[in-house]
């Protein structure tokens, strides 16, 4: 019977395999599926057990804190966490490290020094990357619209800000940047429909659209298709899923900014294991971002990003 929470962290591996809790921000978005797959890949390669558990409702801060506390109380070997807020999880993470449970942060940063490493994409430059492309496309055709994701979500906020910077730098007029899509696909869809109508997209008053994550991009994609605007306006989204990739193929989406979630999940778990085995790890690990367009989508590395082989890992 195991009695002390620190027992699992002993570097010799012992009789029990390492048990690592991986806490995403949510579980249903495609993005997190890829992270999950990457984490599973790492766990199989490295022979550790992972427990994958996110908040029931996407972006439920309180519940994520509860989860970190629960795993701390359970005494897992380590926690890999994508914090929903950079401040709110500080004390829970401190408590975990205090209980000799190391923490690796991924996807979004945490305002603390307690964690072992931070494994993530640079969201601001990812937003810039997407909107620099968008700006080139729409420069002389008209203004652009940014549909935000949700109040208080730091990573998407950085993308939105990065995007707005890039658009302004090119002198593109911002028609609207204060509307939010909300947590689920259907709220994002309704908001997109209204926004397009409100800005007169059907009369061609909107030249470009940016959305900062999967749910807003999907909601906007359906709205664009319904309004028969496919290909008529420049639309840059974020993250990938089958329907979104089909949107790029069909021309409704000009480009998708992709992070490498699979790699992120993989690296996060791998970093944790390395740390647990006593190896030295980098404080900041960048997982990079790329822009996929119809032109480059068939290149091999893009293909791997677009259609990660998840089934192999998640079945």
């Amino acid at each position: 019977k195991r009695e002390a929470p620190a027992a699992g962290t002993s570097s010799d591996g012992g009789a029990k395999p390492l048990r690592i809790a991986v806490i995403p921000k949510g579980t249903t978005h495609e993005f997190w599926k890829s992270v999950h797959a990457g984490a599973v890949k790492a766990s199989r390669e490295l022979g550790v057990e992972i427990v994958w558990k996110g908040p029931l409702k996407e972006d439920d801060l309180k519940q994520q804190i509860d989860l970190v506390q629960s795993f701390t109380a359970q005494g897992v070997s380590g926690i890999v966490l994508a914090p929903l807020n950079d401040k709110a999880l500080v004390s829970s993470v401190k408590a975990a490290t205090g209980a000799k449970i190391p923490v690796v942060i991924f996807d979004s940063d945490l305002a603390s020094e307690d964690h072992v490493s931070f494994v993530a994409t640079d969201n601001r430059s990812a937003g810039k990357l997407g909107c620099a492309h968008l700006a080139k496309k729409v420069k002389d055709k008209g203004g652009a619209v940014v549909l935000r994701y949700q109040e208080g979500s730091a990573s998407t906020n950085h993308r939105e800000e990065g995007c707005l910077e890039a658009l302004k730098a090119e002198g593109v007029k911002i028609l609207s940047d204060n509307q939010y899509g909300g947590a689920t696909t259907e709220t994002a869809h309704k908001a997109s429909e209204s926004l397009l109508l409100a800005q007169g997209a059907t009369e061609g008053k909107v030249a470009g659209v940016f959305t900062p994550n999967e749910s807003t991009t999907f909601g906007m994609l359906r709205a664009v298709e319904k309004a028969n605007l496919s290909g008529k306006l420049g639309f840059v989204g974020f993250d990938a899923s089958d329907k979104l990739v089909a949107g790029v193929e069909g021309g409704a989406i000009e480009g998708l900014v992709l992070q490498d979630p699979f790699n992120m999940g993989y690296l996060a778990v791998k970093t944790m294991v390395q740390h647990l085995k006593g190896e030295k790890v980098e404080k900041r690990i960048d997982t990079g971002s790329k822009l996929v367009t119809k032109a480059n989508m068939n290149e091999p590395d893009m293909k791997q990003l677009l259609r990660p082989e998840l089934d192999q890992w998640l079945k």
Partner: protein
Amino acid sequence: MKKLWRAPWFGPLCAVLAVYVLFALLAPDTFPRTANVLTMARQTVIVSLAAIGMTLVMIQGGIDLSVGSTVALTTVIVARALDGGSGPWAAAASGVALGACVGAINGLLVTGLCLLPFIVTLGSMSALRGAAKGLANEQKVDADPKGLDSLMALPGGAQGGFLLPTGVWVALALAVVFAIFLAYTRPGRHVVAVGSNLETARLCGVPVGRITLMVYVIAGGLAGLAGVMEFSTLTVGDPTDSIGLELEVIAAVVIGGASLSGGRGSIAGALCGALLLTEIKTGSTHVGLPNWVQEILTGAIILVAMALDQWRERGKGAG
């Protein structure tokens, strides 16, 4: 004229018109356009369908918290059915049937075990959400809509056509059907009687259990249909869809004149309530109000509309 003034849906209808005028003045270029009105109508379909069922349930004296989960589960079922090779009609029918089954289970728990409807549907709300996620492997389920998406599309695909999408017609037709059902049929009047005074209804020989069960089955079936419409809109089965829908639906029904203690309620009123909520949301986007202002506005409009309605109701006694 006086009869109109006294109808329970008169207040909510006035609110809908007043808010329409308000936003038409604030955003004259975009808000009053046909395309926008059509979009609002379409966006109200899902809440409206669920609200018709909820009106029946609430008139009967119950409540149904499981609508949101039922809608989500239905989108998943429809997607899985289509994926598994069903035709569009079979998939839609299986969605509606699923909803009706869910309603039957709710109804049986309420009547058979004498549990509070709030508790029963709270339990099924959670259980169905879990079932939806499990069935969908916790991700969105893609499926070729095989034409089901046309339910919520504008006919002819054209912007600004004057014809409404099929889904809107379906919702309107069902609203009329169930309003007639409530007002002119024996089971319908029994629903009102049970909600008005359950004991008296039982003593007078109304089959209270059967009426209760019926009401939940209808509500479940309509939630299933709302799920089909949701699938038609999104063309994916989304297990996290419609979280919090129950509150929006109940709000629409209560704004439409229902009370939480049964006996009162109006389908026309509930539709107006649903439309009011959509209008405020869309209107705020058109005026370009930030979300937080929109939320304050929504609260304020609900309160003002209901306060005016209350004042009118009180006037009734004296009139």
